[in-house]
């Protein structure tokens, strides 16, 4: 069973996965949280949400977050799947969820998720990870501390270098 790391107050920690990841061949369980494919969500999502269930949607790299916009305020999580670690489309999707659609739920990285991508993922707004390389929360905490500064604004809200310089100049 792959393990889940979540950012708790900004720090990575092991987390209990309260969701059942429904694969194509699985029947939808009668209770508890579920993660559905986009296709499955389109047919079953409304009913599950109406029944008060916790629902998440899993998008593959070719599916677009725009498809979820009408439901985002009711979705407990969005899982973005990396088919290969070199496929960078989901970074844009995570950024859009956070910056454009102000999505406040969990954005979970699944699939080819490697520790060395951690810095980029956190910066783009992912806050939950299912690493494929056996890495744990301590490793992720280490990766998140590698860079003392950042050059650009992103979904994590870190202050970029140009803003730090301006603040320093104003203090003088």
């Amino acid at each position, binding site marked *: 069973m792959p393990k889940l790391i979540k950012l708790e107050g900004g720090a990575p920690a092991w987390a209990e996965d309260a969701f059942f990841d429904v694969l194509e061949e699985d029947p939808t369980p009668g209770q508890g949280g579920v993660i559905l494919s986009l296709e499955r969500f389109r047919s079953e999502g409304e009913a599950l949400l109406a029944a008060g269930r916790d629902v998440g949607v899993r998008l593959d790299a070719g599916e677009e977050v725009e498809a979820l916009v009408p439901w985002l305020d009711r979705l407990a999580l969005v899982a973005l799947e990396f088919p290969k670690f070199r496929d960078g489309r989901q*970074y*844009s999707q995570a950024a859009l969820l956070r910056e*454009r659609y102000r999505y406040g739920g969990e954005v979970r990285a699944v699939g080819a998720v490697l520790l060395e991508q951690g810095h980029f993922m956190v*910066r783009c707004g992912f806050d939950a990870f299912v690493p494929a390389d056996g890495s744990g929360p301590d490793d992720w905490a280490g990766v998140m501390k590698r*860079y003392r500064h950042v050059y*650009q604004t992103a979904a994590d809200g870190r202050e970029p270098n140009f803003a*730090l*310089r301006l603040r320093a100049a104003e203090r003088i």
Partner: protein
Amino acid sequence: MYRYDALDAEMLADRTAEFAIQVKRRLAGEITEEQFKPLRLMNGLYLQLHAYMLRIAIPYGTLNGAKLRRLAHVARTYDKGYGHFSTRQNIQMHWIKLRDAPAILESLAEVGLHAIQTSGNCIRNITADPYAGANAEEVDDPRVWVEALRQWSTFHPEFSFLPRKFKIAVGASPNDRTAARIYDIGLKLRRARDGALGFEVMVGGGLGRTPYLGPTIREFLPTEHLVSYLSAILRVYNRHGRRDNIWKARIKILVASLGAEEFARQVEAEWSAMVADGSAAGIDVPHAEIDRIRAAFVETRFTDRPARSEAFEAARAADPAFARFARHNVVAHKVPGYAIVNISLKAPGEVPGDCSSDQMEAIAGLAERYSFDETRVHYEQNLILPHVALDDVPAVFAGLKAIGLSTPNIGLASDIIACPGLDYCTLANARAIPIAQAIAAKFADPAVAEKVGELRIKISGCINACGHHHVGHIGILGVDKKGEEFYQLTLGGSGLEDARLGDVLGPAVAGPKVAQAVDALVDTYMRERTEGERFVDTYRRVGLPPFKAAVYAEAH
């Protein structure tokens, strides 16, 4: 020039430390070679035919003496005593041992040099007009904007796993010295009628097996929106660029398949959405930061000098060799009494773009003494001393002559761009360097080269086109025919303001016949040309037939 502040220096230190961790994890078997490869590439380390190659970034092609001396030191200590300046204003060391890489990177970092994003599917080191800050025709110093883009693109969280590599060039003059239309994004600074500063934005140029000249998708982008607008372009590309086929993954394919208009529409829509959702405002670099960067580039303290230098004129009259150098390698400067001095790395018999450690140190010395401590790298694989007082040009000439770098051939037939080719590269089908040497030998007599005039010959050892053959006045592409090196010739190309892709002349010619074929092409031009026409002008006027007849008549 821009100097790293504490924040830049700490970014670089953190990167060096991170790469050391990644190498350690690789050696401990915690990450596979497949997983390590992109990490290694984003730090500029390629595995080539004989050894590792380290590609070191030279942002906006600008070096001070300390940096140039350090490159000389690294080449001498860890390589064979020379480096190779590339068509991307970078320098490559071709004989590196992996175990030395961390020590080299640490040594480079001490002077603010690095190999960040010189490879991999990310935004690569960004190039600028090598005459920036020195030529009179520029509307602004492009390096200011390239530095802003350097910071934005460095370790970009969203754009570090793009479908393919991504290259940006920034120019600021009507005369293009960046080859903007063959870039993924080419930017040209221009002024609107009301004096406002903005960029012409060209997207989707590129060479390789499917060459395109990048169409303009926006005539005028106000400078304050530069970073958010480029973010919109990159986001459209990151989401929609092809990832199923490495040969169709560059942005040029996306732009060509959508059409420039539709691509532009998608970019504008994304950008408008970024403005609406508030992210654009946070991404764009504030004026105060641009001013800070600008201040670093305008610090050159020129002195008042007469426009005419008696010393320069006297040397021209006395020494025909100096006069020739002055005609071809010395260009007008924006400040009266100064000149831009081009240093050709194309001496006959040498490898285009190669420079020895001794030469680098001597150039650093000349730059420190005569050019406000600045050296530039031209994408045509030459160097430049951008700010030399006319009075000092004779001394600079003498200094260059002493190290074998006074070849007066800038823009002439022997000033050839060539990729490393099969002598170094795993991708190449054929050698490029010996072909360049054989052609250059034909024009070794400077009087002959001068008579022929401007002629841009570009040679690639394979279809990936690192030698820009599609945009050469004469382009030469190495192909493998049953184990033999053959070369396809193209005519009439240009990557500059008169951009065009070259036309294929006819069947490929065997390696030993290439220089002879070039000779026949040049003879045809000399016969056909009218007053003031360059080779490329004559070709574009008369077309293929006479050139074809000349080359294939001789071949048979």
